[in-house]
C-alpha cells in the first residue's frame, strides 16, 4: 500500500513538473546591473515552453544613447523530447544574446519586451542598469587628474596580479588617443609558456568613446581581453604589447602630397605572482580545478524502461579552465549501467570574466525495475577566494524504471511509434531465406573476371579488322575474287561429286571443268567465261604457279574437253579419280599462287 502511495506521489510530482514546463515564458537577464563607460553588458533573452512554435520577431531593444549594440548571437534552439507513459512531451527553448557597449554614464532601464505566441502575449520584466564614469588608470574611482602620458597610449589592466596556479586572471588592453591615425598594427605577445590562454574578446575595428581626463577629451577604445590561467608557481610576466600607427606630418613631398610619420606605443610589462596550491586539505579526487564552480543536472527526474537508454547531461561550470574539470565518478545501484556519450567543453565570457563549462552527456541503461536515485555527482576544486578546497555536489537524479520488452516482436502501430521516437532497441533479425550463400566475394577476384575485362577490348579490335576487310572487299575486286575463289570452287566440286555418285559421269567432268576454270579465273582475276586451256596456263604461270601444277591444270582441262566430246569411255571411277586430282591440284595452287 505504501509503495502504491509513493508511486502515485511520484507520478503527481512528474505531472506537476510537466505542467509547469508546459507554460510558455519569455525572460530577459543581464550579466550585471552596474558597469562603467567603455565596458560591455550582455543581455540574454529566452523564450521557452512546451510545443513552442517560434516564428521569429524577437528584436534587441535600442538603448541609445547610453548603450550601443556591438554584437549579437542567436537564435539558438534547444529542444527535448520525453516519453512519459504513452505521452510524448516536446519542450523547446529559443535563446538570443546581445552585447552592448556602455558609452555614457547614467541610469538606464531596459524596457519590458513583448512576444506574442499561441494567442497570448509574453512579457519580460524591465531591468535597470547603472553606468558610471570609468576612473582613469592610477587614480581613485571618479578622479580626473590622470592623463595618458602619451598620445597614443596603450593601457593594460589585470584583474589580479597575485593568483594561485590555475586561477583565472583577466588582462585587458585599452587604447587612449587624441589625434586620429591610420593603419594601426598591434604586435602579438606570447604567453603560452606560463599560462593557458583563452581570448575573451577583441576588435577588428576601433569603436572609441570620448572621456574627459584632466580637463582634456580623450578617445578610449577597447582592444582585447584575455583570461590567463597560470600553469606553474613562481612569477610570470605579461610582455608589453606594441602598437604602431601612421599619422600625417606637416611635411609635404615634391608632389605636394602629405608625408606620413609612424608613432609607436607599448603597454607596460606586468608581473604576476603565482602561488602554489596548498598541500594541506587537498582531496584525493582533486584534478587541478581552481575557481568557483557549480555542478548541475539538466533534469531532476525521469521515467524509463529496462533495456532502454535514458539520456541526461551533467553540466559543470565555473571560473576555472574546463580542461581541469574531470568527469565525476559515482557509485551506481546494482543493475544500472552509466555510459558517457560525449564530453563537450567551452569557454564563454560573462561579466568580464571567462566561464569554463564541461557538459557530460550520459546514457543510463537499467536492467532492473524500480525507483533509483542517481548521484549526487561531485567534484573537488580549490576556491581561491578563501584559499580552501571545496567539493561541489549536484542534485540527485530520480529514475523510475518500468519493465521493458524482453525481446523484439512484430509490433503494431503503437509499438512502432514508440521505437521510432526513442530509437532505443535493436531492430529485428532478418527472416528465413532460401539461400544465404556467399555473396561477399569481390567480382573481380574470380579468374573469369580477366575475360570480362579483356573481351570488350578484343571485340573492338576485331571490329576494326572487320571494317578494314569490308572496305577492301568493296574497293579491291581482285582481292574480293581471290577470297571468293575457295567458296565457288567448293560449290562446283560438290556438284561434281554428286553427279559422279549418281552415275552422270559426263556431267561430273563438266563440273570439274567449271570448278577449275572458275578457280583460276578468281585467283588470277580473269573472266572465266570463254577461258581456254592456254589462257589458264598463261595466267597461272604469270601468277607464279609451279610447272608441275601448271601441267596438271593443262592435263585436267584437256581430259575434261575429251570427256565432253567422247563420253563413251567415261566411268564413274575415272570421274572420282579426276575429282581427287582436282582437289590435290587446288591445294597445291593455293600454296603456290599468292593471295
Amino acid at each position, binding site marked *: 500500500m505504501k509503495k502504491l502511495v509513493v508511486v502515485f506521489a511520484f507520478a503527481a510530482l512528474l505531472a506537476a513538473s510537466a505542467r509547469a514546463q508546459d507554460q510558455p515564458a519569455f525572460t530577459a537577464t543581464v550579466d550585471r546591473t552596474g558597469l562603467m563607460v567603455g565596458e560591455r553588458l550582455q543581455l540574454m533573452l529566452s523564450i521557452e515552453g512546451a510545443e513552442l512554435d517560434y516564428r521569429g520577431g524577437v528584436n534587441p531593444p535600442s538603448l541609445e544613447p547610453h548603450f550601443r549594440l556591438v554584437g549579437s548571437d542567436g537564435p539558438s534552439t534547444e529542444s527535448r523530447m520525453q516519453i512519459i507513459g504513452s505521452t510524448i512531451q516536446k519542450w523547446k527553448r529559443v535563446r538570443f544574446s546581445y552585447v552592448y557597449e556602455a558609452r555614457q554614464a547614467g541610469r538606464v532601464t531596459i524596457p519590458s519586451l513583448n512576444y506574442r505566441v499561441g494567442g497570448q502575449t509574453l512579457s519580460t520584466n524591465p531591468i535597470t542598469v547603472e553606468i558610471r564614469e570609468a576612473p582613469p588608470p592610477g587614480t581613485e574611482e571618479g578622479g580626473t587628474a590622470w592623463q595618458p602620458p602619451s598620445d597614443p597610449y596603450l593601457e593594460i589592466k589585470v584583474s589580479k596580479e597575485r593568483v594561485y596556479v590555475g586561477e583565472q586572471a583577466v588582462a585587458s588592453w585599452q587604447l587612449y588617443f587624441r589625434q586620429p591615425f591610420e593603419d594601426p598594427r598591434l604586435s602579438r605577445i606570447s604567453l603560452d609558456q606560463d599560462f593557458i590562454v583563452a581570448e575573451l574578446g577583441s576588435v577588428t575595428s576601433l569603436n572609441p568613446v570620448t572621456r574627459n581626463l584632466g580637463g582634456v577629451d580623450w578617445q578610449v577604445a577597447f582592444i582585447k581581453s584575455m583570461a590567463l590561467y597560470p600553469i606553474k608557481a613562481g612569477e610570470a610576466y605579461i610582455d608589453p604589447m606594441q602598437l604602431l600607427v601612421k599619422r600625417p606630418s606637416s611635411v609635404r613631398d615634391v608632389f605636394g602630397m602629405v608625408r606620413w610619420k609612424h608613432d609607436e606605443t607599448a603597454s607596460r610589462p606586468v608581473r604576476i605572482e603565482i602561488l602554489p596550491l596548498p598541500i594541506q586539505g587537498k582531496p584525493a579526487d582533486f584534478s587541478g580545478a581552481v575557481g568557483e564552480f557549480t555542478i548541475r543536472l539538466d533534469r531532476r527526474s525521469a521515467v524509463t524502461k529496462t533495456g532502454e537508454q535514458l539520456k541526461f547531461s551533467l553540466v559543470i561550470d565555473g571560473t576555472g579552465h574546463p580542461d581541469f574539470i574531470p568527469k565525476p565518478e559515482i557509485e551506481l545501484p546494482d543493475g544500472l549501467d552509466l555510459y558517457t556519450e560525449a564530453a563537450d567543453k567551452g569557454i564563454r565570457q560573462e561579466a568580464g570574466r571567462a566561464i569554463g563549462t564541461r557538459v557530460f552527456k550520459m546514457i543510463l541503461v537499467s536492467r532492473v525495475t524500480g525507483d533509483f536515485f542517481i548521484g549526487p555527482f561531485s567534484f573537488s576544486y580549490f576556491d581561491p577566494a578563501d584559499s580552501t578546497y571545496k567539493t561541489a555536489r549536484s542534485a540527485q537524479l530520480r529514475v523510475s524504471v518500468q519493465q521493458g520488452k524482453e525481446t523484439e516482436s512484430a509490433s503494431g502501430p503503437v509499438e512502432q511509434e514508440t521505437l521510432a521516437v526513442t530509437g532505443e532497441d535493436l531492430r529485428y533479425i532478418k527472416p528465413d531465406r*532460401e539461400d544465404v550463400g556467399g555473396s561477399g566475394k569481390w567480382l573481380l577476384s574470380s579468374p573469369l573476371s580477366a575475360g570480362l575485362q579483356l573481351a570488350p577490348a578484343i571485340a573492338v579490335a576485331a571490329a576494326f579488322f572487320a571494317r578494314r576487310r569490308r572496305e577492301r572487299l568493296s574497293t579491291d575486286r581482285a582481292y574480293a575474287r581471290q577470297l571468293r575463289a575457295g567458296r565457288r570452287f567448293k560449290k562446283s566440286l560438290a556438284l561434281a561429286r554428286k553427279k559422279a555418285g549418281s552415275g552422270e559421269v559426263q556431267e561430273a567432268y563438266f563440273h570439274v571443268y567449271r570448278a577449275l576454270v572458275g578457280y583460276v579465273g578468281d585467283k588470277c582475276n580473269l573472266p572465266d567465261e570463254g577461258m581456254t586451256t592456254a589462257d589458264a596456263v598463261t595466267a597461272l604461270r604469270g601468277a607464279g604457279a609451279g610447272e608441275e601444277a601448271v601441267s596438271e591444270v593443262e592435263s585436267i582441262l584437256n581430259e575434261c574437253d575429251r570427256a565432253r566430246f567422247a563420253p563413251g569411255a567415261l566411268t564413274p571411277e575415272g570421274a572420282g579419280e579426276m575429282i581427287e586430282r582436282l582437289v590435290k591440284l587446288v591445294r597445291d595452287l593455293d600454296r603456290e599462287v599468292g593471295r
Partner: protein
Amino acid sequence: MRRLALIGLLAAIMALPLAGAGSSAATALYNRANQLYQDGNYRAAAGKYREAVAAGGGAASLYYNLGNAELRSGRLGPAIAAYLRAQRLAPRDRDVKFNLEYARARIKARLPELPRSAIYRAFDRVVGFLNVNEWTLLVLAAYWLAAILTIVLILARGETARRVSRYLLYVCAATALVSLPFAATRVSRDHLTPRAVIMDEKAGARSGPGEDNAELFELYEGMDVTVGQCDSGWCRISAPGGFIGWVEARTFERL
C-alpha cells in the same frame, strides 16, 4: 540466330560470377539459428550463425542476424564486427545502419574524431551508397556498353546509327570514368585496407610493440581500427581521430 546465341553466351559469362554457390547447409543453419533467436537462446543462435558462415554463408542478412545475436548475448565487439561485415555487403540496409549505431552507442568511450570537410563527407556518402560488387558492376557495365557502342560506331553504315552510338558512347565513357574513383575507393576500403574491431573490454595502445613501451591511449570493445604492420604479436593500429599506437594482435578481430 547465331547473333542471339552470342548474346546469350555473353550474358551467361557476365552472370557466372554473380551466381553464388548456394549452400544449402549454410541456409539450413541460418534458418535454425533464426529459430533459436526467436526462442531467446541468443548465444546458441550466434553459434549457429557462425557455423553458417563457416559453411559458406556470406549474405548480409546472415551477418546482420549474427550481430543481433551477439549483441543480445552481451558481446559488443563481435556484434559490431558482424554489423560492419553486413554493412559492407548491404550498405543501404537501414536496419544494419540502425543496429550498428545502436551497438556503437554502447562503446564505453569514444575517441574524438577530426572534423571532415563537406566535400569529403559527400564523397564518403557516394562511396558508401553501393557495395564493392555494385560499384564493380557499374564500371564493368559502362565499360561493356562503351565497347559495344564503339563496335557499332565502327561497323554501322547508317549516319543516324553512328551519331546515336557516338552520343551514347560519350555517356557510357563518362559514367565509367566518374564511377572509377568511387569504385577504386570502395575496393581499397573493403579489400585493401585491413580493418579490425577491438574484442577485449579494454586494450591499451602503446608507443611500440611490447609491454615496456608507454601507454598512449585506451581502446574499448567495439571500436573499429585500421591495422598496419605487425611484429611479435603486436600490431600498429590507427583509430579514428588520427590516434596511432600498438596493441596486442589477440585483442582485435580482423574484418
